[in-house]
């Protein structure tokens, strides 16, 4: 019964909307036929009528529903539908009186449309707020158990043994727990660094080749290749890193007499780099394209060789764009989850040796949210604290990137009179 109510209501509303449209248009057409000049066209009055009835009803139903949810009250479906119907009819009646020559139906619609578009734009802000809200309360609970400062600066990530809790000896365990997140962030940054060392040279190199050197055919053939790399799911990359690349790296390191862990930071780093290559190369491609050709011609016309032109004219002009592309790539690498979940280790390890095992923030988040830990424990809550800090870091990177772009734009103002 309830299942059919919603579709029925939607059909009803659609019907009402059509009727309203038709009424508005007819009436306006009649007025116009009498020879009175109208501010807007009949169709626009029709749309106005529809919006005033069904549009208003939809908006009010939505708002009521939201208000009820926020206050936590149960949602009385029937009353909502009833209210919607009433508003629609009322709106139709009121709007009909506005179908007159001096009313700007056009601007009214335009206003509603603008409002709706701005509303859509607001969703992205709400998303950010949503992310904050969803991590912040748990993060605060965590910080009430464990000092924020120690969390940020501590070098020991040692969540303590939860088996002691299970055994009812949790008091001693919690005093043991250490949540210094530095090793996690160090691992994250190390893997990101490796990824960037792979992705930036290769990505930038391919972009330069494609924009400056490649004949058209090669360009058209290779662009899709890079895009395919971009489309591969990260879980697949993770599988590849864990199953194929890690052992390979151990073998290679062994060949050079080095000892590598099977969960070394290098393999997720490299694979993540591969994942990011297309990202860098397509952004750099755009950036290089946007360097005006007049600059290139200016250089070439002075007998500058192509290589010198690229190095000394094109790249410097493209630098801000390339930097911001790289920073975006960095924040993607920081937040990348599946590759590291599958291929990186889980030992928090503060080391500079990429052949050793390391873990990352995202791995820690996933494992504490999907593991066997008790949900109220500090260890689980630490996931939210980590998420919050990670969010702050990417935000910071973004701001830096915006700042850098502005700075460089100022410096190398490319003016095209």
């Amino acid at each position, binding site marked *: 019964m309830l299942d059919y109510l919603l579709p029925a209501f939607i059909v009803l509303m659609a019907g009402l909307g059509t009727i309203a449209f038709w009424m508005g248009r007819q009436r306006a057409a009649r007025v116009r036929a009498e020879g009175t000049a109208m501010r807007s066209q009949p169709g626009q009055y029709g749309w106005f009528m529809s919006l005033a009835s069904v549009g208003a009803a939809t908006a009010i139903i939505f708002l009521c529903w939201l208000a009820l949810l926020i206050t936590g009250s149960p949602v009385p479906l029937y009353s909502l539908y009833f209210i919607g119907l009433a508003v629609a009819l009322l709106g139709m009646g009121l709007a009909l009186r506005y179908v007159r020559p001096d009313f700007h139906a056009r601007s009214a619609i335009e206003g509603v449309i603008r409002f709706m578009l701005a509303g859509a734009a607001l969703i992205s802000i709400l998303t950010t707020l949503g992310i904050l809200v969803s991590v912040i309360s748990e993060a605060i609970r965590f910080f009430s158990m464990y000092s924020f400062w120690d969390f940020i600066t501590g070098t020991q990530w040692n969540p303590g043994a939860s088996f002691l809790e299970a055994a009812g000896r949790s008091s001693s365990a919690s005093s043991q727990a250490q949540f210094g997140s530095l090793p996690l962030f160090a691992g994250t940054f190390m893997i990101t660094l490796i990824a960037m060392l792979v992705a930036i040279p290769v990505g930038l190199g391919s972009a330069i080749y494609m924009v400056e050197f490649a004949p058209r055919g090669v360009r058209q053939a290779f662009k899709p290749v890079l895009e395919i790399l971009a489309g591969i799911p990260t879980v697949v990359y993770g599988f590849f890193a864990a199953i194929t690349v890690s052992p390979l790296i151990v073998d290679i390191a062994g060949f050079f007499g080095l000892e590598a862990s099977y969960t070394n930071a290098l393999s997720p780093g490299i694979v993540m780099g591969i994942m990011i290559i297309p990202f860098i190369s397509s952004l750099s491609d755009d950036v290089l394209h946007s360097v005006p050709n007049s600059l290139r011609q200016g250089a070439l016309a002075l007998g500058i060789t192509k290589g*010198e032109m690229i190095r000394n004219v094109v790249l410097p002009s493209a630098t801000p764009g390339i930097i911001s592309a790289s920073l975006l790539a960095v924040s993607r690498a920081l937040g990348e989850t599946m590759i590291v979940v599958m291929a990186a280790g889980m030992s928090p390890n503060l080391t500079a040796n990429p052949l050793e095992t390391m873990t990352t923030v995202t791995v820690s988040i996933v494992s504490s949210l999907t593991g066997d830990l008790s949900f109220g424990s500090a260890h689980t809550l630490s996931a939210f604290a980590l*998420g919050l800090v990670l969010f702050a870091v990417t935000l910071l990177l973004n701001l830096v990137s915006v700042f850098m772009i502005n700075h460089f734009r100022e410096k190398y103002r490319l003016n095209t009179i």
Partner: protein
Amino acid sequence: MAQSFDDITKQLGKRHRRTRRLKLTCMAAMVLSAVFLVVFLGDMVNRGWSAFQQGRMQIEVSYTEQSQQMPLTAVDEQYRQLVSRGFFRQIPQRMEADPELLGTTRTQWVIARSSVDQYLKGRENSLSEQQRQLIDRMVEQGNAKLAFNTTFFTTGDSRMAELAGILSAALGTLLTIIVTMAICFPIGVMTAVYLEEFAPDNRFTRLIEVNINNLAAVPSILFGLLGLAIFISFFGVPRSSPLVGGLTLSLMTLPMIIISTRAALRSVPDSIRHAAFGVGCTRWQVVSDHVLPVSIPGILTGSIIGLAQAMGETAPLIIVGMVAFMPDPSFSLTQAATVLPAQVYSWASLPNQAFQEKTAGGILVLLAVLITLNAAAVLLRNRFERRW
């Protein structure tokens, strides 16, 4: 008077060589990324192609009253451990559906148990020496073989590796993506239109812009936490459902769609807008009648790429519970479901070695879909790429 050509040319050798070196380096970078792709695909195909094959055996099945009660008795004792348990499970149902079967004995091809399948493929398995000899003999007589694995495409997940398939995950992915697109496509395009065509250049607009760029870089797992807290806990959307997965992914894909739509809108030359304003269009008419129609290919290209990315996303879906065990394909937005990458992820952690092959097989299917999507986007773009 300047130097003569010959003088100058003499000095140029070194500089030309440097250019050539740069060109080679850059070319090497590009070839390297192509090599990555080839190695990667090669590795996946190498690991996964055998998932598309399935071990089958031809044996005698006797449909007796006893076998309706105790299906195991339907086949000869020596084969019981070799035939898929799923086959036995179906015997009673099949007999009910087809009463004529009762009392007959038929020689038929049945799906082998995964250990047999693995043995036929030359992999590690838990068969005894005796069983291996038996299978060797059957192979010689043509009674055991590897055939194309239709099961993989027509069934849902199963704990019996020989019966596990990707159908329910594929359906789940389809539904999730439909929800994702239904939400983020209109909202993304509307946002982009607002920012590109309507918004005044003020602080609020810049805030939105920075915010969108930032969202594009937010770790996807945080979107999972968002989905959990907002959609599941607050709005009460059913956990594990394509609805909640789609909602979560749509927020994640939104920035990508906005950014690419804005690029598409921006590539529409202002002269078209001026022409439209010049004949008395309102802003919305300019957008809806002139700007959007010509930027649709660009918007679609961006959306397809965003969609492909959403399809491959796993981490946030794990958090909102889309790693359910789905033996029966279901086609509902509000019932539990799983998606392809999550299926791959959960198979990857199962003990049975046969699932490792399934994992790679699932990956191949996923890759095939994604490559198709990307190819579609590229085609679309090439076809409509237009300069005004």
